[in-house]
């Protein structure tokens, strides 16, 4: 397991009782079939099925709302684990199409949700100045610095 997990005592994760309060509390699990925080701890940590978990598409359904770790009786940082998993998965190329598009837009335009002609006209009508374009070069660099260079390169 890499750096992110080293921040925590690994035993913090191993003490999971599999009580499933996390899954029962998870809003995403209610709507996405196959998204199950308990199972991520079971498979990724307890069973060591790291490669399999990193290849799952459903990992991206975590909204990082943190209800699971708020209610976990053993204070396991489940959201932290999922963020870690998502980071690793992204580097391995497991990035859903919608997010890929979003990052592409971020690199190209500087906005995750870019402005449109319509928003430009609305701003004009309200007497607002046009928005300044962000420095896309800098954003790419920041993404690379953050370790997303492989992701940026694959775009």
């Amino acid at each position, binding site marked *: 397991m890499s750096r992110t997990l080293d921040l925590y005592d690994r035993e913090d994760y191993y003490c999971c009782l599999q009580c*499933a309060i996390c899954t029962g509390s998870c809003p995403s699990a209610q709507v996405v079939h196959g998204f199950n925080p308990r199972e991520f701890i079971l498979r990724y940590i307890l069973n060591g099925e790291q490669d399999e978990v990193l290849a799952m598409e459903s990992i991206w359904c975590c909204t990082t709302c943190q209800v699971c770790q708020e209610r976990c009786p053993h204070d396991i940082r489940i959201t932290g684990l999922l963020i870690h998993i998502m980071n690793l998965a992204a580097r391995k190329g497991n990035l859903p199409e919608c997010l890929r598009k979003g990052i592409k837009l971020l690199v190209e335009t500087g906005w995750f949700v870019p402005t449109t002609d319509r928003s430009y006209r609305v701003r004009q009508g309200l007497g607002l100045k046009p928005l300044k374009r962000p420095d896309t070069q800098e954003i790419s660099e920041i993404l690379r610095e953050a370790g997303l260079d492989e992701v940026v390169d694959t775009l």
Partner: protein
Amino acid sequence: MDHEDHLPQEYEEPRIGVYVCHCGLNIGGSLDCEAVAMHAMNLDNVVYTEHQLYTCSEPGQEKIKKDIAEHNLNRIVVAACSPRMHEPTFRSCIKAAGLNQYLLEMANIREHCSWVHLHDREAATEKAKDLVRMSVARARLLEPQEEIDIPVIQKALVIGGGVAGIQTALDLADAGYEVNLVEKEPSIGGRMAQIDKTFPTMDCSICILAPKMAEAGRHPNIRLMTLTEVTSINGYVGNFTVSVMHNARYVTSDCSACGDCSNVCPQFAPNEFDIGLAARKAIYLPFAQAVPSKYLIDMNLCLNKDGVQVCEKCVEACERKCINFNDTRSEETFRVGTIVVCTGVDVFDASEIPQYQYRRAPNVITSLEFERMINAGGPTHGHLIRPSDHRIPKSVAFIQCVGSRSNKTNPYCSNVCCMNTIKDSLLIKEHWPDTEIKVFYIDIRAFGKGFEDLFQRAKRLGVQFIRGLPGEIVQLNSGNLRLIGEMTLMDRLYNMETEMVILSIGLKPSIGSDVVRKFLTMSLTSDGFFMVAHPKLRPVDTTSRGVFLAGCAEGPKDIKESVTQASAAAARANIIMNRGKITVEAITARVQEDLCTGCGACTKVCPYNAIYLNQNKRAVVIDAACAGCGTCSAECQYGAIIMRHFTDDQIMAQIDAFTEHEPEKKILAFNCNWCSYAGADFAGIGRMQYSPEVRIIRTMCSGRVSSRFVEYAFARGVAMVLISGCHIGDCHYIDTNTYTEKRYNQVQKIMEHGGLDQERLQLVWVSASEGQIFQEKVNEMKRKLKNLSMDEIKRGMLFFGQREKKRQERLTRARQKLAIKIQA
């Protein structure tokens, strides 16, 4: 009892016999026993030495006895295994030969030498010589000690009148002792009285408890005190002085519990016994089977407050004229020999977990509320009804581990909830067989006799067990509840509706027990319950002698276990009281009055409150309460406290003997008897090889290790010093190892100030099973020792030598001053 002077006896020249044991090949195989015996022969005062194959054998012991007579020996040194192993053997051996048993010293050349240096015969032999030399040095200064007997008052105090307290009181009373049973509630009975049925036999709880309560109420040897709280406990084993406060009942003992008063009383309040599910009056009987069966008045509720009488209804209704508004609380003091603490448990407050909606949704109740509801004498006359609409629910869900096994609430398993739920589910099935019952759990723990059968019975009757706790409970408009969670065995989410939810709440230490703890200096384990002296071998003793534990005060447990513990505690208390006296091992502290300045430093560190300042401002030790840790002695700046059998002089003599030969190449370790010495023994038993530079001096507690010993060792040129004790929290003497840490830090600072290498002094916590930690520490120190320069050691000798000199001067001045003061 205050200390009496037994010593010193007339001085006689020590005539020491040294016996080096081969222990078969255990010792003889790894070092040269003959050479060790030869070395001993050349030491001062040694008049006889011998090396034997097995010293502990019958012929070995006979030889010692014979030699004592033949050579007129008056001190015996046995170089063999750990004193934790055979000290009692050799003590009784020399006692049989007419010597005082405290004139024995053992050199541990097996666990601490031959077994840990299996492959370095030369170094092991040298080390054994050192160890024997140190032992002989100590033996020279050994003094005969008399163990004293202290009288024991043959009366007992039992705190708490739950089933454990009742059983303890009955057992002790039947054995013939006078028992004071104190209960803070108006009736005895405790939690068991509130429960409907017991698992696994499904007996009616109050039916089996009520006869015991009644017996405790009328037993001629039991003084039952309800509505009474313990306000102070002083003293020590055999001689406790207890003060209690009797709260006013406002109803005299003539009450026949007819209930006429209650019928006319206009004031209502929630009934505590029914957890607020029913109402009671201001004048009330806690419950039908209450013992004593007497009414009481809740003055917070009664209209007649502060002597102003506005309502006389009860007074008028009472034919026997039992109501007394002038009743006041009263204090009482009595003396007892032993104390049994049975303060029980409280239940977890489920509203601490908001997503389970307790106290928000009316149809979410706790398991204890369920017990009252299903009880025929309870508020709903045995009907399980929904609080929202008083209907009998068609479906019920139990949720396990509410407030247990969680870092957010209580980390421990509450032991009883699984079986309690299974029993509850069977009770529902018994009354209303069509009820749909689901139990949401993490693990079902059915570990006791007959428990698994009950679990299977519930399953056969169709109780559904679903693995996976709900994440959330949502209240619907109908009053029904929606449970959202995951069945982990099926990898499937559930989202199901139920008419009622019962939260299986955990147990937590009783609020009242904290008060008792303060008086008794009992320790708590990390879960907040009282700690026993040993979790396996002394399961009802506390670290305070003469104080015992029974029931849930020690940890959550079921009725059977509570009763078992209660009888065990009664038996243990009986052992002390039956003899009428107790023997105290002669290792207690003794104050040299003429040296005591009355600064009181010792009184602050004693974990047993065994030392106090008398009216003349002199420290006095209570022998019966003193456990002999020696922390007071280490704390005393004036050398006024002598630890019998572990005196400063004896330890200094050991250091002197240790430093006679190449101290700059060696490590001196101070190990406490209970954890780290045993840990080093364990390293030997496990044959964990470590560097042979280390020599161990045993003290009872690491708190005995005065900074003076450490400084003196450095002044004598020792390369490195290791102090080792029990882990913080595991100290055999409650918490005296915190002073070890304090002193370690002090010496570290002094070394920093003197520009010395602070790594020369090390501290390590080693439990009795952590031989490996001791091994690693010694090896680590050996690596550091290699890089230590002679120059550094010499600087240390100079620096600490000067400090020791100054200390001596200061001490002399202080003693002169004191002598003048005493004369005046």
